[in-house]
């Protein structure tokens, strides 16, 4: 099978859906003439023209809201945030308008649209440019939240997101755009809300999603050499969460570690841990462990980033801890 970059997979998903559906358009900062701040939309202006690939001023609140209004009135906007850090400027329109419009209008109006862009840290950018928003948006009913970890999933899920009747948050990473992976030429979609077992195993279940899956897979690889077999589950979607896949795995391995890049309080890991103790308490042979970013804003210095972000070592230690191994 051919391999393509993560950014190309996203571009293909958007372009295919735009060819298929006239209602779909892409709007955001630097998406058109500059070909995307991270070159995701490269060449799309040439193919679809300025009516459908639209550069905006730096006005996130405004263009997010314009996207919601357009969606309520029959279009299928893809709103790109240069990064989700800047979605904070727009979060009122995402939460108060997009997520709630259907409920407030008693089902008369809907916001079928996608907000997409990178989330999380991306090197030495300090705290205002290094935040994870997966759990923030996942907290809000009315939204669906997708956080893919490889090009294949990204393409299939983005196509589903664009076709979905509900507002979808789609989160990427600057540190994944260059990643290569196998993606078939033929068309396919991946259903929203279905987790994927990225690596079968029997001793411990590790649940994760998004960019940090790279860390988890590397940790599982290393643990294999020490004869610890990890079952790695990629949630792919953090709202809704595929609890069933997680529970099935935990019932088999009896041990769970959750790894995510966000802060610990009210995170996806706390949610998973609650659900598992609630539904599989008798199956657990050890308390659930998690690895998250430390409970602090991410600073600039590499030493502090290293001390803060989840890494292979911390993941390996967490797995050993739930196995009561040193």
């Amino acid at each position, binding site marked *: 099978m051919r391999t393509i970059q993560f950014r190309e997979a996203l571009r293909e998903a958007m372009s295919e859906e735009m060819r298929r559906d006239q209602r779909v358009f892409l709007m955001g900062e630097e998406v058109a003439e500059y070909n995307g701040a991270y070159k995701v939309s490269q060449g799309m202006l040439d193919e679809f023209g300025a009516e459908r690939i639209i550069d905006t001023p730096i006005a996130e609140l405004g263009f997010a809201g314009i996207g919601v209004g357009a969606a309520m009135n029959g279009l299928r906007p893809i709103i790109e945030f240069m990064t989700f850090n800047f979605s904070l400027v727009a979060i009122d329109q995402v939460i108060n308008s997009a997520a709630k419009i259907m409920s407030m209008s008693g089902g008369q109006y809907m916001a079928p649209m996608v907000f997409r862009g990178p989330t999380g840290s991306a090197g030495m950018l300090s705290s205002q440019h290094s935040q994870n928003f997966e759990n923030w948006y996942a907290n809000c009913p009315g939204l669906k939240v997708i956080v893919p970890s490889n090009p294949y999933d990204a393409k299939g899920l983005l196509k589903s997101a664009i076709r979905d009747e509900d507002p979808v948050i789609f989160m990427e990473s600057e540190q994944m755009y260059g990643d290569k992976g196998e993606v078939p030429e033929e068309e396919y979609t991946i259903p929203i809300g279905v987790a994927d077992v990225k690596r079968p195993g029997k001793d411990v279940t590790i649940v994760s999603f998004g960019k940090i899956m790279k860390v988890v897979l590397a940790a599982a690889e290393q643990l294999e050499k020490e004869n610890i077999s990890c079952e790695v589950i990629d949630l792919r979607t953090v709202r809704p969460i595929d609890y069933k896949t997680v529970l099935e795995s935990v019932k088999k391995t009896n041990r769970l570690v959750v790894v995510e890049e966000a802060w610990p309080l009210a995170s996806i890991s706390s949610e998973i841990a609650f659900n598992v103790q609630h539904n599989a308490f008798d199956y657990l042979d050890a308390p659930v462990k998690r690895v998250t970013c430390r409970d602090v804003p991410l600073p*600039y210095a590499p030493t502090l980033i290293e001390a803060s972000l989840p890494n292979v070592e911390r993941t390996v230690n967490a797995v050993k801890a739930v196995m009561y191994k040193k």
Partner: protein
Amino acid sequence: MAITKQMPETKVNSDLKFSKETYLRWYEMMQLMRKFEEKAGQLYGQQKIKGFCHLYIGQEACAAGAITALTKDDKWITAYRDHAHPLGLGTSPNAVMAELFAKSTGCSKGKGGSMHIFDKEVNFVGGHGIVGAQVPLGAGLAFAEKYNKTGNLCICYMGDGAVRQGAFHEALNMAMLWKLPVIFVIENNGYAMGTSVKRTSNVTELYKLGSAYDMPSEPVNAMRCEDVHEAVARAAERARAGEGPSLLEFRTYRYKGHSMSDPAKYRTKDELETYRNQDPIEVVRQTILENNFATEQDLEQIDARIKEQVLESVEFAEKSPYPTADELYKDIYAQQDYPYIQD
């Protein structure tokens, strides 16, 4: 686009209003900014400096001209293009360079980096990364000065891109309503990343945005320290007299890309050349020589001293240690024993 054609007439007449000392101060300040950043650019290329790094090269007069027009108790705030203002205000180049190197001796202890230079000593209140966010903050700094009846003001810088944010408009409205002592400065360098001003609005003469709030507003030729100084002095006089804010549109240009990763293909060489030909440092240098304020040799001596200072800052930064992991839980809460989640 010929932004050059829109350069407002200089309002400063040819017989000199400024002293020899002021010219020499401008020269020295701007040379330090320029040489420091040229070095920083080089070091970025060598990966000694990482993250986002936005250079001010070409825009120096925007800071220098304002510094001579204000007092040391006035407050300064800007966005992420923030090395030059503190250097001009007297922050040690060592502390700024060490911050770029992410070292614990940096002015933000290596926690902020290039985009978050802060120096309370000189009243430089950062260094902000979210476009437009510093505009209400600047109004708030001014609010406190008014509240405390200090007679001080805040000068609040932003880029041309930032004026399209709601935060800008909300802040301008309230600042005018409450007559806050703030000078809003738009550093109009023609572009927000790759987007030219004319692609973001029908209103491309940015000073006109002030008129929506009845705010005294004017465009300024910000390639010239004299023009910047005079406009800021006028605005400061209004602010200190209780007449409230002003909006100044500094017309300027950044010679480099938006940040280190931007090849700047969206503009022409000619456009860049037009501005290089009115380089603010060169203009001041010529004035100094023409008026015999200093000789070529004097200026060379200044240049040599600055070069020395910059090299010293690099050496200082290189030798300084990175912050150690125990710094991670410091400077987050005022409460010393805050119970962090550590599971």
